[in-house]
C-alpha cells in the first residue's frame, strides 16, 4: 500500500509541475485533492487493511497528503502569480488621456482676495467688522473731519441717493453710496468697545468708469485704537501685511501725504515686482511703477477730531487707520495683468472659471 501512496505522490507532483493555467490548477485539485479525488479514494482503501499494516500505511498516507498539499499550494501560488502577470500583460490604458476636471465651482477672484486679506490681519489680532455701504454723509465725511463743502470731498466723486431733483436726507445728513470704507471708523468707535483692531471690507462707489477705475469696487479699512498707538506700529502692521500678501522680498515705504481724517497722513508704497525696485527693465524705464515703487493706498494716525467724533478722548487714545482697494491690491500681486479692470465684474464664466 505504501508504494501506491508514494506513486500517487510522484505522479501528482509531476502533474503539478506542468500546470500553467487556473483551469488546469482546478482540475488537478479535483483529481488529486478533491473530496472524491484520488488521494481520498486511495485512503478509503486503508480501511480494508489489518491493524498494523493500516498504521504503517496510514503514516505514509498522511506524509504523502502533506507533501501533495504543500506542493499544490506552491503550484497555486506560482500559477496565480503567473495569471496576474498575464492579465496585466493584457490590460492597458492610455495614460496620455487628459484628466477629467472635478465638478467644483469657482469663488470669484475678489472673494478670494477678501478672504486672504482677512486671514492675514486675523493673524495679528484684527477682527472683521461690517458697516453700511449706503450711509449718512456724516459718517462718510463730516465725522472724518471733512465739513460740508470742504474741497477734500471732491476727491471722492460721490454718488448721492435721491430722485426728482432732491438728495435723500435724514437724521445724519445726506444719504450717499459710501465712497470709501472709512465710514466704518466712527461707527466702530461708537460701539464703545476698546481697544479696537478692525478690518472692514465692503463695496464702495465712486462716479468713475475707466479701464482702471470702477464705479463699484471694494476697499479694506484697517483701524487700530488704543492708548499709545504709534506711527511705528502702523509701519509694523503694514510691513507684516505686505510681506505676507506680496512676499517676503517686497520692500515698503511710507510717503507723506494728506488726508483730512488722519494726521500725520501718508501713502503706502511697495517695491515694484517687475523691476525689483530699480525702476529699470533691461535698461529702459519700468512701465508699471513710479521710480521702483507702486502706490498701494493711504494711511495715517487717526485725526483727533475723528476720535472726538467717535466719542473718544484724543488725549487718552491714539490710533491709526489705513484703507485701500481690494481689486488694485489683488491685481498688483497676482500678475494676472487684466488690462481692463471692468473684466472682473462682467460675469463671463470663461473668465471666472480660470480662478
Amino acid at each position, binding site marked *: 500500500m505504501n508504494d501506491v501512496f508514494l506513486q500517487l505522490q510522484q505522479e501528482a507532483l509531476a502533474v503539478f509541475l506542468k500546470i500553467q493555467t487556473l483551469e488546469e490548477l482546478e482540475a488537478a485539485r479535483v483529481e488529486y485533492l478533491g473530496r472524491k479525488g484520488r488521494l481520498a479514494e486511495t485512503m478509503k482503501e486503508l480501511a480494508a487493511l489489518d491493524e498494523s499494516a493500516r498504521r504503517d500505511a496510514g503514516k505514509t498516507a498522511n506524509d504523502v497528503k502533506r507533501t501533495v498539499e504543500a506542493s499544490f499550494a506552491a503550484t497555486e501560488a506560482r500559477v496565480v502569480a503567473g495569471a496576474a502577470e498575464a492579465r496585466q500583460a493584457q490590460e492597458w490604458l492610455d495614460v496620455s488621456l487628459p484628466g477629467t476636471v472635478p465638478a*467644483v*465651482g*469657482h*469663488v*470669484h477672484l475678489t*472673494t478670494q482676495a477678501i478672504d486672504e486679506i*482677512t486671514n492675514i490681519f*486675523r493673524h*495679528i489680532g*484684527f*477682527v472683521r*467688522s461690517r458697516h*453700511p*455701504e*449706503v*450711509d449718512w454723509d456724516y459718517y462718510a465725511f463730516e465725522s472724518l473731519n471733512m465739513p460740508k*463743502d470742504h*474741497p477734500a470731498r471732491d*476727491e471722492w466723486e460721490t*454718488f*448721492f*441717493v435721491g430722485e426728482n431733483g432732491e438728495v435723500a436726507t*435724514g437724521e445724519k445728513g445726506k444719504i450717499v453710496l459710501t465712497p470709501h470704507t472709512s465710514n466704518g471708523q466712527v461707527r466702530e468707535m461708537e460701539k464703545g*468697545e*476698546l*481697544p*479696537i483692531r*478692525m478690518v472692514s471690507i465692503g463695496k464702495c462707489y465712486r*462716479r468713475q*468708469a475707466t479701464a482702471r477705475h470702477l464705479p*463699484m469696487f471694494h476697499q479694506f479699512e484697517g483701524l*487700530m485704537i*488704543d492708548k*499709545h498707538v*504709534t*506711527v*511705528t*506700529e502702523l*509701519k*509694523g*502692521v503694514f510691513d507684516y501685511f505686505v510681506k505676507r500678501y506680496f512676499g517676503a522680498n517686497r520692500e*515698503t*515705504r*511710507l*510717503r*507723506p*501725504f*494728506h488726508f483730512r481724517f488722519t*494726521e500725520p497722513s501718508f501713502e503706502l508704497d511697495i517695491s515694484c515686482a517687475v523691476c525689483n525696485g530699480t525702476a529699470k527693465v533691461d535698461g529702459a524705464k519700468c512701465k508699471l511703477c*513710479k*521710480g521702483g515703487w507702486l502706490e498701494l493706498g493711504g494711511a495715517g*494716525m487717526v485725526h*483727533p477730531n475723528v476720535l472726538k467724533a467717535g466719542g473718544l478722548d*484724543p488725549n487718552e487714545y491714539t490710533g491709526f487707520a489705513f484703507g485701500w482697494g481690494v481689486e488694485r491690491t489683488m491685481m498688483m500681486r497676482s500678475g494676472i495683468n487684466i488690462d481692463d479692470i471692468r473684466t*472682473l*465684474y462682467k*460675469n*463671463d*464664466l*470663461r473668465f471666472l472659471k480660470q480662478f
Partner: protein
Amino acid sequence: MNILASYNWIKEHVKTNISAEEFAKEFSLRSMSVESIDHCGAHFEKMVVGVVQSVAAHPNADRLRVAMVDIGEGVVPIVCGGTNLAEKMRVFVALPGARVRWHGGADWTTLEQASIRGVDSVGMICAPAEVGFDKVACGDHEIWDLSGITDASVGTPIAQALDCDDTIFDIEITTNRPDAMGIIGLAREAAVAVGGEFLQMRTLPLTKGESEGVSVRLEDKRCERYMAAVVTGVSVQKSPWWMQKRLLLAGLKPINCIVDITNYVLLELGQPMHAFDASSIAQNTIMVRPGKEGESLTLLDGKAVKLDSSIMVIADAEKPLALAGIMGGKDSGTTMKTTTVIFEAATFDALTIRRSARAMDVASDAQLLFEKGLSPSALPVALARAVELVIQIAGGTVTDVIDVYPTPRIPKRFPFNPERVRSRIGVAIPDAEQVNILTKLGFDLQKDGDTTMMTVPYWREDDIEGEVDFTEEVARMYGYHMMPAVLPASRPPASFDDATLDWAAWTKRFLASAGFSEFFSNSMVSVSDLEMYGVSPKDALAVFNPLSTDLTHMRPTLIPSVLRAIERNQALTHTASIFELSRVYLPHEGQLPEERMMLVFGEYGGADAEKTFMRLRGVLEYFAAKSGIAFTFERDGENDHWHSGRTAFVFRNGERVGIVGQVGSDFQTSFGIHRPVFLAEINLEALFPHMKHTHRYEALPAFPVVTRDIALLVDERTDFEKIVAVVRGAGALITDCRVVELYRGEEIPAGKKSVTLGVTLMASDRTLTSQDVDDVMATVIRELALRVDGVIRG
C-alpha cells in the same frame, strides 16, 4: 494737483548740488511725491542753431524749397516747406539722429538723412511743435524763427542756445499745501527735506507815484483783501525768452509780457494775479461785488456766463469785468495796445470760488488755488514782484498802489509739546531737532509762561489746524523711512469677527465645493433691468447723480443681475451652476436702506427639470444640515415671478426665508434666455442668527440595517412627501425611505410615474429576521395601495 517744477529754478532758491534723481527721492520721502523726472536736455540732442544762407526753389515740388544752412560744421542742404523761410534767418535745425514729431503729431520719430523728391536733405528746419514746444505761437506751415530768442553762434547745441538744459519734476501737491504750488514754497520744503540753505526771494519795495485816480471799493465780504497796482507807460510785447521758457517748461502758454508776468508770479509764489487794461475800466473804479441777476459776462476763453448774487465779480462803475478768482473777462484784459496796466492781487473766499466754478463749469489755475485757501498776507510780495518784473520788461512807472484789507488776520498759534510728538510717533526725536525742523519750515517758537507756542507762518494758515499737525511736520521731515517697524504688542481687541461675514464667506466656499461658480455684479442696475423683472423702480433706492442710464438704482434683488449674466453667458457656456451672494438695498423713507445679505444660486440650461430641482433642493438641505438649521418646503402656486408648477417656498422654523424653482417664463423671455433657469433665492440675513458650527453625534447602529427596494406606480401628481408619510407610518422599524429612481417610459401608462423606493429598516435591540422585514413590507404595500393608490410593479 500737480506742478511742473524746474530744478534749475528751484536751485536758485536752495543751495544744493545733488542729482535730480537723488533730489526727487529725498523730496518724495519727506515732502511731496515727485511722479516723474524729465531731463529736457535729452530732447535736444543733435539739434543746433543754424543760419539760412540761401533759399532756392525745389526742382520737383511747388511747396518745398531747398535751403543752404550754416550749421557751424559746414553748410548743408535742407528741404523745407516753411512759408516764412528766408535768408539770414536763425533757425532750429534737427540733424539726422534727432527725435522729432512730424508736423507736431503724436509720435516721435528719429530723423534720417534723406532724399526728398530727389533732393538730398541733411535734417530738418523745425517748427516749435515739431520739437515739443507746442505752446510757442507759430503760424501754420511756418518754421520757428529764433531771431530775438537767441544770439548764440551757428552750430550751438539747442539745449545751450535756448537755455533748456534743465530737469523738470512733475510733483503731486496735496490739496492742503497750495503754498507748495510755487517754486519758492518747494525750495523752502527742499531746504529741510533735502538739505541746503533756503535763499529767500527779495523784491524791490512797492512805492507809488502820482495817482491816476484809480479807486477800489470792496462791496463783498467774500473778498478778504484786495490790492492793486497801476503801472502806466508800459509797452506790451512778447516776453523775453527766459520768461517764456520758464512758462513753457511749466506747461503754460506765453501770451504777452503782462499776462506772462502774472503767470510767472503764479509759478514762483503760488499766488494767482490778474491784469486789467486800465482803459477798459469805466470811471477808474474797481468794485468787488456780488453779481446781479440779469448780468452776463464773456470770459477770456470766449464762454458767456450768467451772473447772480452767489457769484463774486470784479466790476467797474458800469459792468462786470471778471469772475473774481476764477477768470478774467474777454474785454478787460491786456493786449499789445495796452499802455496802462492795473495788477490785481486779492484773496477771495475759497468756498465761494469753489461753488461758483462748479456752478458755471469754469476751471482755471487761479480758481484751483483759491479754492484751497490762500492767505491775504501773501499779496504784498506777489504784487511787488509783478511790478518789479513789469518795469524790468515793459517799462512804465507805478502810479497807484491800493490795499483794502478791512480786518487783518491775526497769526495762528498753537501749543507745542515735543513729548507728545515723540509719543505719537514712537521714536525719541530730541526737542532741538523738532524745533529745528519747524523753524526751518517757517514756524516761530515762543515761550508763553510754561507753555511753548508755535506761530504758524501765513502760507500754512489754512493747513495747520492744531497741535497734532506739528507731529506730522516733525515726523515727515525726520523721515518715515528712518523709523522702525514694530508690531503692536498691546491688548487684543475687545470685539470679535462679525458672524454674518464669517457665514457669508463660509456659504461661498460651500457653494463652490458643490460646483457653483460665483457671479459678482454691479449693485447699480438700470430701470429696464428692474422692470424686466417686474420690480417697480419705486421699490429701489434711486441714485441721485447716476453715471449713466445703466446704473440708476441700487438693486433690491439679485435676480435681475443674475438673469442678465446668464443671458450673456448662454451662447458660450450652454449650461452652468452659478451663484451670487451680496447685500441688496431695501429703501426706507427718510432712513438708511436695509442692507440685506441675499443668496441666489441655481442652474441654467439643464435638460431635466425634475433632476435640476432635486439638485437645488439637495444643496439647500445639505447647506442647512451643515450649518445647524433645517428647511421645510411648500409648493408655491401663486407667485407671479416663478413657474407655478415647479416652485416651492423655503421655510425655517415656520418663517419664509426663500424660494426655489423655475424662473417664470415671462421673465426668462424678457431677459432673452432660451432655456429654463432654476434658481433658489435665500434671505441669509434671516438665517445668520441661527447658523452654528456645532454638530450632534449620533451613535452608529449596533445591529445591521436592511434595505428593501420597491417600485411603485402612482399618479404623476402624487407628492413624494405623501408617499414617505405613508411608508414611515407603516411600522416603527422603518427608519428611512428614499427615492432610488423615478421612471416614466414605455411600460408606464400616461399620467403615471414609477417611483422606486429604498426603504430602510432597523431595530435598536436585535438583528431583524427576514420574516420581520417581510411583515413590515407587506403593511407598507397595503397602505400604499390604500392611501396613494399605489401599485407595486414587477
